[in-house]
């Protein structure tokens, strides 16, 4: 059964779009070596989930979904601040943000 959330656009189309964006994010995490790009892929995955939450919130006419997106955004902001601080610290010590190099450092 197709549920239209916009005139002519069903919720299934938004599920497809979110799933594709999420899969691209997963591909980025698995296929890159630069830790900053991996961080950006994680942000992409978070945004895909946010988009789906808003679509479902509209489908159910429920504000809780959009409030949850708001909280997800604040957690993402905190995560990026701490994560980039760790990366800056690593870069100062190791002069690299290549995860394959960094994983060899542990003894």
């Amino acid at each position: 059964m197709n549920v239209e959330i916009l005139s002519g656009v069903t919720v299934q189309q938004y599920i497809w779009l979110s799933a594709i964006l999420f899969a691209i994010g997963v591909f980025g995490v698995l296929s890159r070596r630069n830790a900053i790009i991996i961080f950006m892929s994680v942000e992409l995955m978070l945004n895909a989930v946010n988009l789906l939450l808003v679509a479902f919130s509209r489908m159910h006419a429920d504000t809780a979904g959009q409030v949850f997106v708001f909280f997800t955004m604040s957690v993402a902001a905190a995560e990026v601040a701490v994560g980039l601080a760790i990366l800056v610290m690593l870069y100062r010590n190791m002069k690299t943000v290549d995860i394959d190099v960094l994983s060899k450092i542990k003894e």
Partner: protein
Amino acid sequence: MEITEIIFYILAFAGVVSALVTVTAKNPVYSILSLVVCFFTISAHYVLMNAQFLAMVNIIVYAGAIIVLFLFVVMMMNLNEIPEMAKKLAWKLAAAVGAGGLLLVFVASLKVTDDLIQATPDESIGMIHTLGQVLLGDFLVPFIMTSILLNSAMIGAVLLTKRENKLQKA
């Protein structure tokens, strides 16, 4: 074809293409700039779904704060001048298969879901007036917790980058 459907497809295409550029671009600065485009298309989707408050917050938080932070770090590390070592082709292929398999699982699980029930559409739920009522009513405690989280994240970020200096001097 309705106008909203055309807009949806244009935005979806732009979003997916810019996401692909983000994860494949060699230069991190290009990655960041195409991530901005991707976030703007997602914000446009929010406007399309009448979630105006979230569209604004998305632009302010992601395009305004997070992306600038990324750009700052990349510029500081001069990453655009040092070429990134590529992973092995077999590893990249495995990543593509893994991501494709995940997409397959998502779409396959869509097939076996129960029928979706649509509520009567309510155009006011995305407005700041309604969201503010809920945010400061039912979700007051999580909202206050968010401020503690952001505060501790800020202190943590400062501490992580500052302690390093002391160690280097000692």
